[in-house]
């Protein structure tokens, strides 16, 4: 059995008096899609931030491809092949869509001409090529979410962290994004995805990890987790699709 690509080992993150993530451990194998779910405030984004280098774990370690990345900054991790999107999308508003992707392309293509060529390819793949020259601030929400994914893709990552990439999209746009995610996995990218929209995450994930109040309360395949009484309990009273 090959070494897991990602290993989260007893990770906790404490802010002053608040324990946002409490002793969470799980592994991911290359090429799988793992869904991270849980009610609002369960600590999903905090865990994301720990894995992607924006926070240091208060306790525990994070391993990527066998290396300890617990204290590495985000820009180092990008170089290691980890890409991420942000829940509240962060486009470079004053720059064009093309420029946004070009910046991301500089990681693997240091020269401008090559970076731009690569950026065009990413724009084609994500369906943004027709809007390449407009300021990123002028995109619709769907466009911005695509741009967000596009920027992460331009890094040519082996591992992708997707944070609520379909929130706020209409059904058509949501389906298109799901298609995109499947294409990514088919291209060999391992994906850790956070999503609130149940039909999306249940449909796309190979496995799920459920958090509640910072702790992992369940882990397993979608059917297994859906039937888990602790999971149902956590969501009781929560509105979800």
């Amino acid at each position, binding site marked *: 059995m090959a070494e897991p690509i990602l290993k989260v080992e007893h990770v906790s993150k404490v802010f002053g008096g608040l324990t946002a993530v409490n002793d969470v451990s799980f592994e991911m194998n290359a090429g799988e899609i793992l869904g991270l779910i849980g009610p609002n405030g369960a600590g999903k984004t905090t865990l994301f931030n720990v894995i992607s280098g924006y926070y240091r774990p208060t306790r525990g370690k994070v391993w990527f491809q066998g290396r300890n990345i617990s204290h590495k900054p985000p820009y180092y991790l990008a170089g290691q092949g980890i890409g991420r999107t*942000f829940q509240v999308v962060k486009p470079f508003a004053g720059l064009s869509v093309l420029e946004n992707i070009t910046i991301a392309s500089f990681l693997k293509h240091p020269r401008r001409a090559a970076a731009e060529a690569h950026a065009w390819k990413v724009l084609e793949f994500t369906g943004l090529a027709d809007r390449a020259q407009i*300021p990123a601030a002028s995109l619709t929400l769907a466009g911005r979410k695509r741009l967000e994914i596009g920027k992460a893709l331009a*890094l040519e990552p082996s591992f992708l962290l997707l944070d609520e990439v379909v929130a706020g999209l209409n059904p058509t746009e949501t389906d298109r994004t799901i298609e995109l995610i499947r294409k990514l996995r088919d291209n060999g990218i391992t994906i850790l995805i956070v999503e609130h929209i149940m039909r999306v995450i249940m449909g796309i994930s190979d496995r799920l990890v459920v958090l509640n109040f910072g702790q992992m309360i369940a882990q397993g395949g979608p059917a297994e987790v859906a039937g888990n009484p602790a999971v149902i309990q956590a969501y009781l009273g929560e509105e979800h699709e």
Partner: protein
Amino acid sequence: MTPISKDRRLIISVVVFAAAVLLPAVVHDTFWLRVATEAIMWVGLALGFDVIAGYTGYLNFGHQAFFGIGCYATALLMMRAHWPFFLALAAGGVVGAVSALIIGIPTLRLRGAYFAIATWAVARAVQQGALMAGFTGGPDGMRTSEYLNPHFFYYVMLGVVGLTFFVLWFLLERAPFGLKLKAVREDQESAKALGLNPTHLKIKAFILSAIPTALCGGVFAYWVTFIDPNSTLGDLLSDQALVMVIFGGMGTLIGPVVGAVIIFGFKTVFWAYLSAYEVLYLIILGALIAASVIFLPDGVLGISFRRRSGRAKQEPTQPAAAASGKEA
């Protein structure tokens, strides 16, 4: 104002530069030549200021420190160590760069507010140091050797500033560096996720802003023959650079050039006719700054970097953008 394509702008810049090179052939009055030399110097100072202010989003209220450091470094090397001018000038640039590194390392890791305060305080400390130190001549200043040659200084200044302009054009508008810097300015956290190290980039930008400023200082020292802490390290320098850049349009290269020429023109006229009302100048400068922030946020030509972020004007294509744009 319709955006002019980048290549067209470059051509215009080259034409303007060529005209500047040919100016002394047409203008023979040394008074006007000196005025033009000073105007060019201010263009250089404004460009340096905009690299860190407009392109990087960090306000250096102590910009004059680099100018003064360049002045004194060049003057001291020429007068005490008897270095030839050009060598001393180059060394002045290096000292300026090193200063930027020292000042920048602790302050650029942090937010813009810290940086503004720290640089403002550093500049005052440097001025204080120049006033107290013996080797700089203290409050009495120091002299450099006299070399009265308006043409020489015109061309040296033009050379320094022209080189600055085109190097900056390449680095900020053509090379990856400029885009990366803008990314850090727009959204630092997002930039990190893409493999950019914001602190490194900011420090490089700061050094890039210091070098032309220090070089202008070095030329200035030899040109005006006499320098003192008041004229080379006073607040007024960064106050004026700030107005020039904001008025002209931040985050562009043309902006500082236009702003510098206009504000310098205003300054020259003011001092020619109203020099009795010194204090008035300070008031006007302050009022210009405050007014520009409120009424001319994109500069007089409306070309600042903010224009394209869609906040100054909403593009007509995407109505949903307004509904979706509210970030928590």
